[in-house]
């Protein structure tokens, strides 16, 4: 057990609020009767994750989360949904009977993830921010990591993405 003085109260209160919101929104994603509502709930989950990253002093990751997931992925997602099946109101086809199968799978996944995380990081603590802006993991360090030791995987990933983009274009164009 940790002592009460070790807990940064404001941070934990913040985490509680964010976590609660994320759980409610997460339930919303699967329970919503309308695709757009589900997608918007997912946005809330993503935003919560970003907020959690901020709590963890990982601002860069938080901002990336917002830029990539909220700004790009979810917008494209909504864009697609609204273009194709955009009716307002309840949609009968959203939920189906596979929920019975899905629930245990989800629980199992949750269990495994929780176990792995606890096993791996249970006692680690993130160093508190020190005074004026100095972060445990600043942006420069991340870029150093990407462009020095992990340069080759980064490039490989880029090429895979490029191939995927070109492939998508080839598939989409019929002529």
């Amino acid at each position, binding site marked *: 057990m940790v002592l009460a003085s070790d807990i940064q109260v404001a941070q934990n209160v913040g985490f509680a609020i964010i976590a609660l919101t994320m759980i409610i929104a997460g339930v919303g994603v699967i329970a919503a009767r309308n695709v*757009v509502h589900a997608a*918007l709930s997912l946005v809330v989950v993503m935003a919560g994750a970003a907020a959690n990253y901020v709590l963890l002093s990982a601002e860069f990751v938080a901002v*990336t989360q*917002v*830029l990539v997931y909220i700004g790009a992925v979810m*917008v494209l997602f909504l864009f697609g949904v609204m273009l194709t099946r955009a009716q*307002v109101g309840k949609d009968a086809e959203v939920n189906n009977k596979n929920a019975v199968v899905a629930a245990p799978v989800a629980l199992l996944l949750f269990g495994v993830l929780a176990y792995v995380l606890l096993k791996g990081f249970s006692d680690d603590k993130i160093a508190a921010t020190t005074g004026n*802006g100095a972060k445990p993991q600043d*942006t420069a360090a991340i870029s150093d990591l990407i462009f020095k030791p992990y340069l080759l995987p980064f490039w490989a990933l880029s090429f895979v993405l490029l191939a995927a983009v070109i492939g998508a274009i080839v598939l989409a164009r019929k002529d």
Partner: protein
Amino acid sequence: MLAVDLPYWAQSLLRVLGGTVAVLLPAGTIVYLFLFKMMSFMQSRLGPMEAGPYGSMQLFAEVGKWLQKEDLAPDGADKRIYRMAPLVVLVSTFLLVAVVPFGPDAYFTNFDAGVFYMLAVSSISTLGILMAGWSSANKYSLLGGLRAAGQLIAYELPMVLAVLGVVIQAGTMNLQQIVVKQNSDSIFGWDGLGNPYILTQFIGFAIFMIAVQAELTQTPFDMPIAESELVSGYMTEYSGFRFLIFFIAEFATAGVFSLIASVLFLGGWGVPFSWFGWDAATGSVDNWMNVAGPIIMITKMMVLSGIIMWVRFSYPRFREDQLQRFAWKVLIPVSLLNIMLTAILKVAF
């Protein structure tokens, strides 16, 4: 240092108040000075003249009018999302202003990845616009919302790429440090002007301003609104204070983007440091800059938003395929070229 002496809650209160002022003040000034008066003079008329001297109270009259109006929602609309959408757009504006530095200590937050953050939160407004367009249950709104999303995604890219040039030249993503860099640097050894990046990054500046024009959906990029065609697009069904929120968000965002552009390209809150013999490396900037800085910033903002509005009132609008073509075939290649050039020169010098 003012901020240090205050308790945390007072600092927070100051920041919230400051943020509200930094959003509403530019919105109000832009609307009155440019939308009411400059536009009227360009169109050989006087604009509002009744409320207050030279119609200066017109803005409050307008706000009062909108607040009185009934908050309507179409019958077929998805009411919850419909009501939420304008707020999402406005939240994006508030998040955006949080990162703008107004003086050596007059800032809301001092992010390490400020530029990155700015680009990230500006994309949230797209979400609000999509929500508004879809939930109105109106075909015009839906078309407008989809156009807006397509356009904002397309112009986000040149904007990012234009800013990259500045980031490369400054060597930091921290907006505060970008300001300091511009004011303490020198141009080939001459430091009379500092080194505002508008000189070296002129292509980036031009692309950034064009992209801002598109992000704000101002003419010539106002296809999503297109009042003569889509009847104001995603805003068609809104009335009363929800329309007011869209309206404030539109002009406040214009102000905030002008602020960011002046931070990135015009030297932000600073004056060339050499004029006062400052050396920012040791933090020698005087405290009074915390008061003078915001005024300098507002001045630069007014100039830039003046240009935005000027273009808005004089140009017809693009069709959206032309608009996409312009983004993908002109702006993005040019900005990539700009980055390459900047990187080469950065390494060379």
